[in-house]
């Protein structure tokens, strides 16, 4: 009977992690991790365990796969107190859509919590229409997956910017923050607005999220122009999270003189090869390859850049980021750079004559 009840209980708490922290008389703490799941339905057994270990109190934490705490039990003087903590960010508001055999609610793959296998409650939200309107879903471009903790940061950033920038048209989060892992220097935020907000926004953001930010303001016409002439902005927006849907990119307009100015940045690679770290080298190669793709009328995306880097320079992007590049690759890079420079100067001169 006991076994049956225990199994039933385990089923109800599938996907939940149970941690026990026991504080003993001597001031020591014992931590028992996720081993006594079956005790969830027998609080008196837990009390007995506390007593037998001579613990003065015991804290039991229940967390889901994303690490969000969902329930806490505290045992003091053999009495049990139970607290339920339901976090706001563990709610997802969805819409029921019609299916052929069954109707469904879709969950975005990029979400905090709600791991596959979790049991959830679905109930109507008629009274909360105002709240539903204020919660907008985000748009992901070129992102296969993102860590839940980063998604929470993104949500927080969007909220702060929405509060402090009244007339924005869109907000984009882009750059190395969206790369896998946590090796980013700052968070690149691009705000599309006709009116720039003063420095308070940067200060407020950095105070609240505790990370460095790099905020760039664009108005509609300057963003359009940037996407027309600049491969790096095309690349930046090929992989981003935006508050509102991103409009299709405008047609390319190659300004060779402008590209010449941008290409010079990549010259630093062979001049400062020994002092640059892997990430800096990657950025300089990314710059030249994106210019190459732009001029050759090819799609500019992170995967295409990695492919071309391999093809043209024989450099693997992961090795480059880890700063494992041999001097032979440097020679290939130098030749590639000067060939590109020559072509661009020639075309820029031609363009000047026709203008």
């Amino acid at each position: 009977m006991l076994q049956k009840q225990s199994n039933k209980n385990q089923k109800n708490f599938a996907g939940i992690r149970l941690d026990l922290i026991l504080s003993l008389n001597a001031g020591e703490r014992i931590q028992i991790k996720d081993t006594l799941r079956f005790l969830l339905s027998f609080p008196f057994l837990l009390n007995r365990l506390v007593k037998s270990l001579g613990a003065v109190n015991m804290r039991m934490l229940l967390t889901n796969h994303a690490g969000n705490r969902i329930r806490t039990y505290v045992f003091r003087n053999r009495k049990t107190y139970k607290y339920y903590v339901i976090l706001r960010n563990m709610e997802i508001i969805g819409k029921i859509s019609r299916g052929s055999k069954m109707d469904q609610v879709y969950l975005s793959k990029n979400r905090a919590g709600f791991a596959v296998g979790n049991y959830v409650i679905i109930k109507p939200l008629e009274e909360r229409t105002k709240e539903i309107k204020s919660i907008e879903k985000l748009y992901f471009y070129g992102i296969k997956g993102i860590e839940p903790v980063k998604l929470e940061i993104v949500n927080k950033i969007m909220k702060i910017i929405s509060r402090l920038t009244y007339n924005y048209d869109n907000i984009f989060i882009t750059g190395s923050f969206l790369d896998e892992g946590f090796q980013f220097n700052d968070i690149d935020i691009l705000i599309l607005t006709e009116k720039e907000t003063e420095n308070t926004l940067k200060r407020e953001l950095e105070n609240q999220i505790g990370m460095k930010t790099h905020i760039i303001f664009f108005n509609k016409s300057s963003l359009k122009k940037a996407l027309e002439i600049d491969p790096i902005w095309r690349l930046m927006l090929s992989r981003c999270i935006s508050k509102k849907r991103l409009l299709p990119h405008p047609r390319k307009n190659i300004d060779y003189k402008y590209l010449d100015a941008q290409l010079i940045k990549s010259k630093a690679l062979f001049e400062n090869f020994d002092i640059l770290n892997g990430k800096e080298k990657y950025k300089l190669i990314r710059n030249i390859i994106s210019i190459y793709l732009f001029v050759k009328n090819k799609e500019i995306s992170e995967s295409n850049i990695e492919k071309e880097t391999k093809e043209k320079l024989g450099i693997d992007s992961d090795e480059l980021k880890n700063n494992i590049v041999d001097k032979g690759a440097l020679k290939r890079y130098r030749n590639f750079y000067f060939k590109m420079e020559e072509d661009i100067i020639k075309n820029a001169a031609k363009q000047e004559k026709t203008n």
Partner: protein
Amino acid sequence: MPQNRKKLIELIIGTLSNAIMHEVLRMASKNKEIASYYKKEIENAINVSRKYREKINPRNRSLSARDIEYIRNKIINKVKVELVIRISKGYKNIDLSLIERLVDKVLKDTNIG
């Protein structure tokens, strides 16, 4: 060591020349307002130069007048040569008078001059 010192000065010259060339070409482009969004990238070149500068003595004071003069002239000449090549190929609107002003500014920013 003297060899290292010489090499570091050459690296500073290379890095700052590129940053100044970028700036002059940017000013000559009809799309200069778009390039101004790259402030972070130009700062990076100055930061790299600062890294080199920190390795050269005296660290906390500006370099000797002789060194400053050498670096200044080398950068100006290097940028001028590159830009003159471009002008000879047909580039227009390149303002060579900008070079000296920009060189003095970056030398100050990098604690060289």
